[in-house]
């Protein structure tokens, strides 16, 4: 789909995942046993065969860049186009722009060089399996200036609070964009519009001293634009807090959730070469997701286990998320805990968090 240019905008995303985002941005947080949050949007863009994808990052992007490499894992290491990682770079002393508008302004060449006529914008906090080609056809069909993507949520949860809401009429036009907590139509931080119009809006907003594209170019100027709404109905999770991270990790243990995220959509990630997981004679595992390279001799219940984790004999892991290469020594017990990468838990240690507020143990801790 050469008509679409991907824009992944992490500029305005706040890193609210406590210990998990001390040293990495939200998009680089590991999720679902072997992925990072960024993998889902990149895989969606890969499936739509976009010519180029620009990734606007602002802070703590070392681990993100390490993960993305040259984009090969998402088939984005191309002779023409592919993945462009665009960190902030302010060189122009006369530049008066601010916020993500400044970021777009400083990378105008990226937009201008691409042959695509439309841009599709997304963040990394809404995990979904959207088909961008379907969104594109819908956008053309509606003849809109911009089409916003939303999900109607039956049971609103605290993680939805920071999200904008869309008032939508019967014909799929956006009537209003606001912040009313009880409105069910969650804006997924995702839109599609013509590139020329996008750049015009960027210039206009900068000229008028504005700083955030969505707020200033779309939300505030909605009367000047024909805004359509696209209802997305597939798998959806918002990860913007430790509570939402933990809850959505646990939800994946539900087979319907697992299937709706993975069944028809291969999600790509940085390739590691781990052996299959070894379950020793004493292993006792149930209702869990387990990545490769693990050696399990203990008990694991209702947990999400990342690659290369070792759970020794007599250890018990319940309702927990254990990231890459952690070692749980003999007879240790953990319950309602999130262990970041490389944590070592010594023998007979007991860590029990609350199911609503799990303990988070920072990367590389030795306990």
């Amino acid at each position, binding site marked *: 789909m050469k008509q679409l240019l991907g824009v992944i905008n992490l500029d305005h995303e706040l890193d609210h995942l406590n210990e998990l985002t001390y040293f990495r941005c939200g998009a680089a947080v590991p999720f679902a046993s*072997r992925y990072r949050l960024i993998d889902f949007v990149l895989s969606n863009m890969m499936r739509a065969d976009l010519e180029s994808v620009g990734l606007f990052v602002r802070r703590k992007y070392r681990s993100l860049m390490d993960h993305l490499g040259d984009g090969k894992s998402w088939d984005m290491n191309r002779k023409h186009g592919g993945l462009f990682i665009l960190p902030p770079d302010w060189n122009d002393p006369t530049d008066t722009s601010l916020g993500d508008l400044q970021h777009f302004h400083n990378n105008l060449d990226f937009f201008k060089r691409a042959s695509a006529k439309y841009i599709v914008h997304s963040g990394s906090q809404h995990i979904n399996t959207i088909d961008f080609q379907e969104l594109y056809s819908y956008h053309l069909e509606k003849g809109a200036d911009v089409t916003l993507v939303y999900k109607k949520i039956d049971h609103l949860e605290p993680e939805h609070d920071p999200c904008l809401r869309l008032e939508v009429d019967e014909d799929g036009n956006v009537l209003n964009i606001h912040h009313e907590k009880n409105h069910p139509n969650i804006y997924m931080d995702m839109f599609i519009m013509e590139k020329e119009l996008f750049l015009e809006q960027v210039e206009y907003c900068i000229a008028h001293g504005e700083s955030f594209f969505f707020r200033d170019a779309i939300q505030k100027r909605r009367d000047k634009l024909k805004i359509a709404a696209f209802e997305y109905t597939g798998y959806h999770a918002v990860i913007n807090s430790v509570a939402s991270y933990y809850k959505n990790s646990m939800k994946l243990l539900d087979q319907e959730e697992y299937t709706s995220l993975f069944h028809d959509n291969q*999600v790509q990630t940085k390739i590691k*070469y781990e052996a299959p997981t070894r*379950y020793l*004679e004493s292993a006792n595992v149930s209702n*869990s997701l387990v*990545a490769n390279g693990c050696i399990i*001799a203990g008990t694991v219940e209702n947990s999400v286990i990342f690659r290369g984790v070792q759970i020794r004999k007599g250890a018990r892991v319940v309702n927990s998320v254990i990231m890459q290469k952690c070692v749980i020594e003999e007879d240790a017990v953990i319950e309602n805990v999130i262990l970041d990468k490389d944590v070592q838990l010594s023998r007979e240690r007991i860590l029990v968090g609350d199911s609503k507020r799990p303990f988070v143990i920072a990367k590389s801790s030795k306990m």
Partner: protein
Amino acid sequence: MKKKEMVAMLLAGGQGKRLKGLTKSIAKPAVYFGGTYRIIDFPLSNCTNSGIDTVGVLTQYEPLVLSSYIGIGSDWDLNRKNGGVFVLPPHEREDGSNWYRGTADAIYRNLKFVDQFDPEHVLILSGDHIYKMNYNTMLEYHLERKADCTISVIDVPLEEASRFGILNTEEDYKIYEFEEKPAKPKSTLASMGVYIFKWDVLRRALLDDGEESDSSHDFGKDIIPTLLSKGKSLYAYPFEGYWRDVGTVTSLWEANMDLLSDNPPLNLNDPSWRIFTRNPNQPAQYVAPGAKVSGSLINEGSIVRGEVRHSVLFYGVEIGEGSVITDSVIMPKVKIGKNVRIHRAIISENTVIEDYMEIGTDREDGDEILLIDNRSKKRKSIPANTISS
């Protein structure tokens, strides 16, 4: 091309008839092993880990899967500007076209390939063994002895020695005799099919052998005995470690089972010697409530709802509720229904096993391992009423 110290030539053309249905449409080195690998991953990863960056892979029988699997070699870090991996099928030349007539002939027909790298030494490998070996250590041994040829050997039990090519050596491992599958073996040093030759010596020998109309053009039968008779200096390199020829259904099954003990003789989890493979990129495996898994090796993309004991599951395998899998190897994307019993079997890729099937449950240790695919007729259904929860 820059001069190379050593180039590897991997013999991957074998049909592997004794693997029956497993090699119906793929070459033996492409057969699955160990939950995620194919046999050829072992020699290829050994090359990468030994710092050998130039590998010719000689294909012949059913090369499609094998050559597309190898691709440009990036999975083994063999996509190099100077060197890398090259798939070398038989080809037509001015003097006619022929299939590779033997192991030595395959190298003989690719002299130009090797010559362009102008190597000092050539490493000959076969694509049908499971082992981890540092070929660089073997090269040092070869250099220390100023050998013309060094052959890697493993000590095998005397009663099995007649299945192998046996090397008879002096005390310092200098070879004086090579016997292919001797009825009365004089030693227990079996050739592992891993050779390092000085390229100029091998080149001369291949040119001479190529002219011989009554030669079978085989390393073991022709090249090695000829070099010995010419007084060349050949040494055996004793290898200690896990090595397994997986040429039959039973030996393939046994080598898979070897991975399942708590301290397996072949460690696949060693970060300093990874076995690289093409990653099928599957989501994490899911072990359902009520499932039981023990003493097993399970790959990503699998969903286990039943019981798995002492078995190997490849990626994308689904096992239904109430099913019990023991002592078996389940290859990729096999779907197993509910209340199925499988014992001592290899289930071939993409096979679908219906609910209430019973496979191999009446088999004892020592019986040949069952190989099941979608064409197999050897299944029987368990009457539903005999299943207790």
